[in-house]
């Protein structure tokens, strides 16, 4: 059984340092935006959260493919944790985006912006992943169906992204493009450091949750070996995958 806690301390320190550096750059280095002024600082947290959460959903799908290909339940657990973490980041991105919308456009939510609505659809779709998963009792079927869900959802994310980019009448500003984008150097540097910081935070929390789940599984297996089936208390019936 793998030990996910290995390297967690180093990763946590690196994450802390990167996020501290990013926050320093955001508030003391990146220039104020000519149009939005200080409000634009939300960009450095909102956009990395959204990008990392979408990448996490895709990673969940890729891990789902690996689970179906190999039949190894560890990939299913990794996929589950990746989607779970992405949902948390997605909720944070939605709330921070809503605050930015209120400050910038005067409304908490704008329904005619394809970027906002499509992101909400993706988050809501993956919000159904957990209830869907736990509605299936048989562990094998549960893992298989959850992987299929993760793959379909993961494939939907890039398709959705392309569709939104192709859509007309965009309200959302386009600052990141294939040709380099509209960000000036200091802003781009700050954004990239913020993106790396949020991505590292995602990786750290993913590893943290994997380590916790792994410890619970090992504890449960040990308990079963020592005490037998009938002595398993409700504590051991918590959310933890079987391997």
């Amino acid at each position: 059984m793998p030990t996910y806690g290995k390297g967690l301390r180093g990763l946590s320190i690196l994450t802390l340092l990167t996020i501290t550096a990013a926050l320093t750059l955001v508030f003391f280095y990146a220039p104020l935006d000519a149009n939005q002024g200080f409000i634009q600082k939300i960009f450095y947290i909102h956009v990395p959260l959204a990008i990392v959460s979408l990448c996490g959903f895709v990673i969940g799908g890729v891990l789902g493919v690996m689970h179906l290909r190999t039949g190894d339940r560890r990939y299913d657990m990794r996929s589950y944790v990746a989607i779970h973490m992405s949902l948390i980041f997605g909720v944070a991105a939605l709330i921070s985006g809503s605050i930015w919308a209120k400050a910038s456009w005067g409304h908490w939510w704008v329904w005619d912006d394809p970027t906002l609505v499509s992101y909400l659809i993706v988050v809501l779709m993956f919000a159904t992943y957990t209830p869907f998963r736990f509605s299936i009792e048989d562990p094998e079927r549960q893992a298989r169906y959850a992987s299929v869900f993760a793959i379909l959802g993961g494939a939907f994310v890039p398709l959705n992204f392309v569709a939104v980019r192709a859509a007309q009448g965009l309200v959302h500003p386009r600052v990141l493009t294939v040709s380099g984008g509209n960000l000036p150097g200091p802003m781009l540097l700050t954004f990239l450091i913020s993106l790396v910081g949020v991505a590292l935070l995602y990786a750290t929390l993913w590893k943290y949750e994997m380590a916790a789940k792994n410890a619970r599984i090992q504890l449960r297996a040990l308990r079963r070996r020592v005490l037998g089936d009938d002595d398993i208390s409700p504590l051991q019936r918590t959310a933890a995958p079987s391997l």
Partner: protein
Amino acid sequence: MTTFALAPALPLHAAGKYVAAAYIVFVVVILIYVMIMAVRLSRTERALVELNGDIAKRDAAAADPAESAARDDVRPPGLDREPAPAGRGPGDSSL
């Protein structure tokens, strides 16, 4: 050095409140997650302590054969079988 001097820290006008709120949301979401994980960790630790206690009791009973025999007499019949393999018990139905 002038770059640092030009950038404001946290202006407390309308924009500052929104920016602060966005970053606070980020921190609060992460803190809630870490708190939930801490509760789960403490639960796992309690289970570990409980398991260690059970093992200690079993070892003590094994060391005293008379007590062990008495314990076997009151043990439910289902517990005489081989322990189930990991991942196939009633607690393994879901993630």
